[in-house]
């Protein structure tokens, strides 16, 4: 489990708002390994979401290098980055962000359609939903589901194509503790079963408790990087 999926080296990211420049990341270094269940924590404005956007090829660093699966993201075109996101990344958002006019099943199938997978789309999407105990909700639209159910569908959408890396931005922020716990257990199970790597940006102690590694950001830099052992994980979670 020592292969680096992501290498972030001396990365800075500045945002300009009129004459004001905000230095969101200030020379950040981070390596993410295959199989990590990593929580990025820190106060608001510490750069968690910015880092996640850079790793997710949604944004480009102002300076420094971000390597994802060996690809230098700064060297990739917009189209190549989109292709990389489509084939190798899964996203889970705080606000679920399911497509409201599509059913749960269609939301999950949509990713497979985008990937150009023609055969067995329905079966694959359905089986993913069933794995997450969502089989009965397959034909419901997002507004007919609870927040927890929607977030599980969002996870199903993120993992249906078996991406190597799943990025989750505050995935439990809108969930109660029971749903949060269930969601995190499910993600841990997916990591264990499919060898996926999960990276969370979070404030939630529950996520930190489940994480195998907790990286704390402060003022756009890594303040601490703590790797926990298996015993600690279970103990913390309970």
């Amino acid at each position, binding site marked *: 489990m020592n292969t680096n999926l992501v290498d972030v080296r001396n990365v800075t990211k500045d945002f300009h708002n009129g004459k004001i420049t905000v230095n969101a990341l200030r020379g950040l270094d981070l390596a993410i390994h295959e199989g990590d269940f990593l929580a990025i924590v820190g106060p608001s404005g510490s750069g968690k979401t910015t880092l996640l956007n850079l790793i997710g090829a949604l944004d480009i660093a102002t300076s420094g290098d971000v390597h994802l699966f060996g690809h230098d993201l700064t060297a990739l075109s917009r189209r190549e980055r989109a292709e990389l996101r489509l084939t190798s990344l899964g996203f889970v958002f705080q606000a679920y962000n399911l*497509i409201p006019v599509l059913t749960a099943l269609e939301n999950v199938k949509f990713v497979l359609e985008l990937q150009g997978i023609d055969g067995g789309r329905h079966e694959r999407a359905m089986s993913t939903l069933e794995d997450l105990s969502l089989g009965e909700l397959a034909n419901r639209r997002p507004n007919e589901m609870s927040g927890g159910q929607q977030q599980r569908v969002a996870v199903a959408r993120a993992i249906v194509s078996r991406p190597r890396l799943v990025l989750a931005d505050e995935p439990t922020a809108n969930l109660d503790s029971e749903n949060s716990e269930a969601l995190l257990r499910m993600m841990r199970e997916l990591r264990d079963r499919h060898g996926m790597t999960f990276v969370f940006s979070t404030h939630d102690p529950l996520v930190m408790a489940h994480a195998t590694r907790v990286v704390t950001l402060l003022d756009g830099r890594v303040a601490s990087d703590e790797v926990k052992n298996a015993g600690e994980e279970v103990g913390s979670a309970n």
Partner: protein
Amino acid sequence: MRDLLLAKLALRTLGRNPRRTLLSIVGIGVGCGIVLYMVAFTRGSSEMRIRAISESGFGHARIAPATWEKTRDSDLRLVDWKRDLDIAGSMAEVEFAAPHSRTTALLAFGTCVTGVEMVGVDPNVERNISRLVRVLSEGRYLERGDEGAVVIGTAIADRLEVELDDDLFITIAGAGGEMKYAMLRIVGIVSTGSRTIDGTICHVTLAEMEHLTGYLGAGEITIVFRDPSNIDALTVRLQERLEGTDPVLSWKVVIPSQGGDMGSDTVFMNLLMGVVIVVAVLGVASAQLTAILERKREFAVLIALGMGGGRIVRLVLIEALAMGVLGAVAGLAMGFPFIYPAATSGYNFAEMMGGDFVTEGVLFDPIIYADMGMWLIPLAFAVALFSTLVAGLYPAWYALRTNPTSALSLREA
């Protein structure tokens, strides 16, 4: 099936805000309906103009002497009119080919005198091409072999104070400038309903004209095509058949003012249609842009999931196309109640034109009918789809430029 869900997403999106979608469709429908009506009316009036020109004896085209277009000299004659007539008559696309010869004449009866353009005709063919000679108030029209016979309009008869079977004294300038005189008996008096036209009709047979003027043969051959919608191409084809002996001129050249009028009418109508389409396009673009702005977060998610630019554009354009299809149906539904009465009852311009609807020797029917046909359906779809596609381009580009990081940030949630 590829992009099935993309299409589903696009179509279902239209149902998210039914009121806006409905208003957009109504907007496209109104624009499309107006364009359909204008095209139907323009086509109808153009057809009527061409028919009026043809039935006033001008035909759809004319084989004329080489210098006629420049000089407009009525004493000019064709190089070999019988050959031209045979070639034109043998063309399947030609319905009628009528030889004519013209000269300026002075008609006198007692102390009354009037000047006219006398036309030599083949009576058997003339009856078919000119409705003017079918409306005889007295007597009969000319027949082949008639000698010393003339048919005149009622206005000429009134001016000269003559009646049927009276003998007119004719003075004309013959070949070589020699003055020639003859007596012609009035065998028929034509009453078209237009004093202007009735003041110009003075027909004799071609043979009589040759005899009177000394100029042999015909000065022009008037051509009526079977398909009036294809006059320019048929004119060129006939010209090729004639192999360059005498030029073939379309009616637009023969009566340039009519061609100019029709051209300017068409330009004006196209301009109006352009304005209507631009207004519709801007309305739809505005509505669609609002819809895109409302779904900015959704587009950010789609981009984050790895949806390519081509698919984003396709998604927006499918929505636009769907609205276009519905807009076309709405346009047909809205246009039909206006086009149908215009096509069946027409608009009567008689009062507006003062009752006499004549310009440049062309007797127009005062009632203009819109042209209604199945062609309206593809036109409706073409106009609506074109408008909505154009209207969808900017919103599609805008959706494509969505910045996923800012659109997904909590501040904009």
